[in-house]
């Protein structure tokens, strides 16, 4: 098995020597000279896709879902690419999607720190799809966690080789040398850049200094603030998103889609459209009719001139009122409460919710001669390649996928419909195309966070909480991307409930001592396409818990912060809560109609707390201030982490107060940002202070960050609103139902 042999490829020096002398192996760690005398570290091997699959770890080993991803990745730990060029630049190919969460910058910081390279000359690019890294999935806030040890180890190795090369060149002891700013420096002042040493470093047989990564306490860049690497490209408009890439001859393409969710073409006539100016081709694809033209405007016009009869979609006749009723009927009943004990029961309902990233789904494809070259910002490129292969008949091994920087994702890019469509059109027209979903396409034919219903009941006697039950019924979340590889994707297809239950069990946490607790998930396929949405199950369950806990505290006549502190069993969450309570002066007197609200969350081996202040006296409620404290074990880029927490607050406000989707007779009601009411500047608090707890101890390990903030932020906003208005919000978004 390729994966197995790779597991043993290199973890110690001896093994690295062994693998170098065994070039016949399919998988080995390379220290090779590239054409331009460049040190290339890591390994790439050409394996067939099936052989690259390994079995999943046992569930018992797993503490939370990112562990699944990290463990699945473990055999591929050395299977990364780090390059030191003779021009003295360091380049790392990141096998993940940067979609704004800032991982390219965070890894540049980590690499520069571990390798002692010049940060300004350390570049991180997004790797093309690699069939030899089957589990290259970007999700579950796991990127830093999964690649932390592999990247540090790779850099420690590279640094040891560079030092060894200098030691051999100068005939001095390797341990006497130091490294700084992409140079090796001798005690007598002699200096050689990494670029100058890269060719010799590639020939080093045995590194003469240890290859152990530095303790976290020695890092100088990790834990500081850096502007993201592509900040200048973004502010000058030169960052190349998918549709900005210049692929010669790729022509604008749009798709006429059914009015119904999942509707399909019954019959069509394209005679008028074909004769319109600028039209290049019209191609029927399984879910619509694609039009390729000289400009997108001409493609839109021709699309609108197509005469199409549509078959109804699978949810024609259904609306979300009926679907909500279905969820009510299928949810696991709560246990009746014993007489004489106090209790609280509540139901919280969450709507379908579009991902609505700013960059609509889009892809560039060039399919010819039984091979495909695709540009698509994917969270799961191997899954997309398999889908392209299945649709076009081209072998997956001939599907090359480039990964541009993405304009947001939030889970949507786990799937790759646009890439498949672009490939089909390109294949039919025998020319490259750039296919774009319009905003309406994105909203009405995209995927959604599942419609969900949370039934919660708690009971107590005097000060002791006896039980806490949380039963959720939801539209089935589509995990058919699996872990990004072919095997688990196939598994999800066969037994979706199993995968979803594993996801549920490993993602959900209730960081409180509440006596007898139970969480149960029931999912049902309701016909509306779904996908994980930033923080997945926690995005509804933890939010509901934190709102419920606030109400329970008030009913039991506890202060909301004090009640949490009495029951929390997460030291990190407790510390975050204490911090925001102090920073935000919890309990201070507020004018009528204004109130504070708090909430906490612990997941991804991280914890966070928010305290927000709300004003409900204006025409619409508004956040005034927000305080956040966050503990992610090892913060890498403090500025990036703060940005995630600030953005999560806007997400939280938007989804709880303003934005949601409806199904009317089998169609999605909302079509764009005019009726999908995402928060604007006028809804944002003027200040959001984010306190980041620094790493503690030399063996600290990073937790996840990308999805951490939204649940606590969302609940804190609702809690502030409930306290200000003395209401009990039960259905979201609040502004639609209150």
């Amino acid at each position, binding site marked *: 098995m390729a994966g197995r042999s790779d597991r043993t490829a290199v973890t110690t020096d001896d093994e690295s020597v062994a693998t170098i002398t065994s070039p016949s192996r399919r998988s080995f760690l390379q220290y090779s000279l590239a054409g331009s005398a460049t040190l290339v570290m890591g390994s790439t091997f050409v394996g067939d896709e099936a052989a690259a699959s390994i079995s999943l770890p046992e569930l018992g080993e797993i503490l939370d879902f990112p562990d699944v991803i990290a463990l699945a990745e473990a055999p591929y730990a050395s299977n990364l690419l780090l390059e030191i060029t003779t021009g003295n630049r360091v380049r790392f190919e990141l096998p993940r999607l940067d979609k704004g969460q800032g991982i390219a910058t965070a890894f540049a910081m980590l690499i520069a720190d571990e390798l002692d390279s010049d940060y300004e000359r350390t570049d991180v690019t997004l790797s093309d799809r690699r069939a030899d890294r089957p589990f290259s999935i970007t999700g579950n806030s796991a990127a830093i966690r999964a690649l932390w040890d592999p990247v540090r180890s790779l850099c420690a190795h590279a640094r040891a080789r560079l030092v060894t090369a200098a030691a051999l060149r100068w005939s001095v002891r390797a341990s006497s040398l130091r490294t700084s700013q992409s140079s090796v420096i001798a005690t007598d002042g002699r200096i050689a850049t990494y670029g100058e040493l890269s060719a010799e470093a590639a020939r080093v047989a045995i590194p003469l200094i240890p290859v152990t990564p530095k303790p976290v306490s020695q890092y100088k860049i990790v834990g500081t603030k850096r502007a993201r690497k592509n900040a200048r490209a973004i502010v000058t408009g030169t960052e190349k998103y998918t549709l900005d890439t210049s692929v010669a001859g790729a022509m604008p393409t749009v798709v006429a889609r059914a009015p119904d969710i999942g509707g399909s073409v019954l019959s069509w006539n394209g005679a008028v459209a074909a004769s319109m100016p600028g039209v290049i081709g019209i191609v029927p694809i399984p879910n619509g009719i694609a039009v390729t033209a000289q*400009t997108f405007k001409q493609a839109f016009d021709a699309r609108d001139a197509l005469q199409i009869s549509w078959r109804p979609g699978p949810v024609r006749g259904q609306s979300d009122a009926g679907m909500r009723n279905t969820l009510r009927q299928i949810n696991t009943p709560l246990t009746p409460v014993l007489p004489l004990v106090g209790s609280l029961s509540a139901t919280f309902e969450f709507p379908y919710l579009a991902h609505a990233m700013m960059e609509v789904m889009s892809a560039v494809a060039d399919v010819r001669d039984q091979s495909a070259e695709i540009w698509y910002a994917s969270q799961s490129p191997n899954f997309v390649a398999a889908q392209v292969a299945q649709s076009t008949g081209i072998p997956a091994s001939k599907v090359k996928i480039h990964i541009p920087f993405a*304009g947001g994702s939030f889970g949507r890019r786990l799937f790759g419909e646009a890439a498949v469509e672009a490939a089909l059109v390109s294949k039919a027209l025998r020319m490259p195309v750039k296919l774009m979903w319009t905003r309406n396409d994105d909203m009405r034919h995209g995927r959604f966070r599942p419609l969900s219903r949370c039934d919660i009941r708690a009971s107590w006697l005097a000060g002791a909480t006896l039980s806490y039950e949380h039963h959720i019924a939801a539209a089935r979340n589509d995990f058919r991307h699996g872990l990004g590889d072919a095997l688990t994707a196939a598994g999800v297809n066969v037994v979706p409930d199993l995968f979803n239950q594993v996801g549920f069990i490993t993602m959900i946490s209730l960081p409180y001592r509440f006596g007898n607790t139970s969480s149960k998930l029931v999912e049902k396929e309701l016909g509306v396409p779904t996908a994980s949405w930033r923080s997945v199950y926690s995005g509804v369950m933890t939010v509901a818990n934190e709102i419920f806990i606030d109400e329970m505290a008030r009913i039991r006549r506890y202060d909301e912060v004090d009640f949490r502190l009495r029951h929390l069993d997460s030291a990190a969450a407790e510390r975050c809560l204490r911090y925001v309570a102090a920073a935000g002066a919890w309990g201070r007197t507020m004018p009528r109609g204004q109130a504070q609200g708090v909430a906490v969350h612990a997941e991804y081996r991280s914890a966070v707390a928010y305290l927000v202040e709300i004003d409900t006296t204006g025409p619409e409620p508004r956040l005034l201030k927000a305080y956040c404290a966050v503990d992610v074990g090892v913060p890498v880029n403090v500025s990036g982490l703060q940005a995630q927490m600030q953005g999560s607050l806007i997400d939280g406000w938007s989804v709880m107060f303003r934005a949601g989707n409806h199904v009317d007779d089998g169609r999605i009601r909302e079509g764009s*940002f005019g009726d999908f009411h995402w928060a604007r500047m006028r809804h944002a608090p003027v200040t959001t202070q984010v306190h980041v707890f620094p790493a503690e101890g030399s063996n600290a390990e990073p937790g996840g960050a990308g999805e951490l903030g939204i649940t606590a932020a969302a609940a804190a906003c609702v809690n502030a609103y409930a306290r200000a208005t003395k209401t009990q919000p039960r259905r979201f978004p609040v502004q639609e139902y209150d």
Partner: protein
Amino acid sequence: MPQYVLKVNGDEHVIDAPNDMPLLYVLRDRLGITGPKYGCGVGICGACTSHVGNSVARPCIVRIDSVGAQEVTTIEGLATGDVLHPVQQAWIDEDVAQCGFCQPGQIMTAVALLAQIANPTDADIDAAMSENVCRCGTYVRIRAAIKRAAAALQQA
């Protein structure tokens, strides 16, 4: 097909286009000027925001026949050579962008705001910037960057 002479970022282009062609697709599909982004196509998200003459405009709903002799400035035309506009610099200094897709539009709106109001209040910022959606939620930093840029412009 009618012919138009368009002035974009200091360059003149001769374009054959139907008169209802929105400026966005002229810029992106004909001239390869990709800083302005498609986000909605109907003028409600602000991702394509640019300047037409001295006004802030949404190229996705500006017909080419309405541009006339007015100079079109996109995000690419804001810097002077390698020297960034103070608003662009403030965006970097405040590390505003996350995914960055909306930021060219945000910046062009902010530049227009500061041209009208040198020292905008929070209410001014709310009013001017609420036509631009940021899905990553960078508003708190956009506000800080506008204030930083205002100070820099006043010192200049």
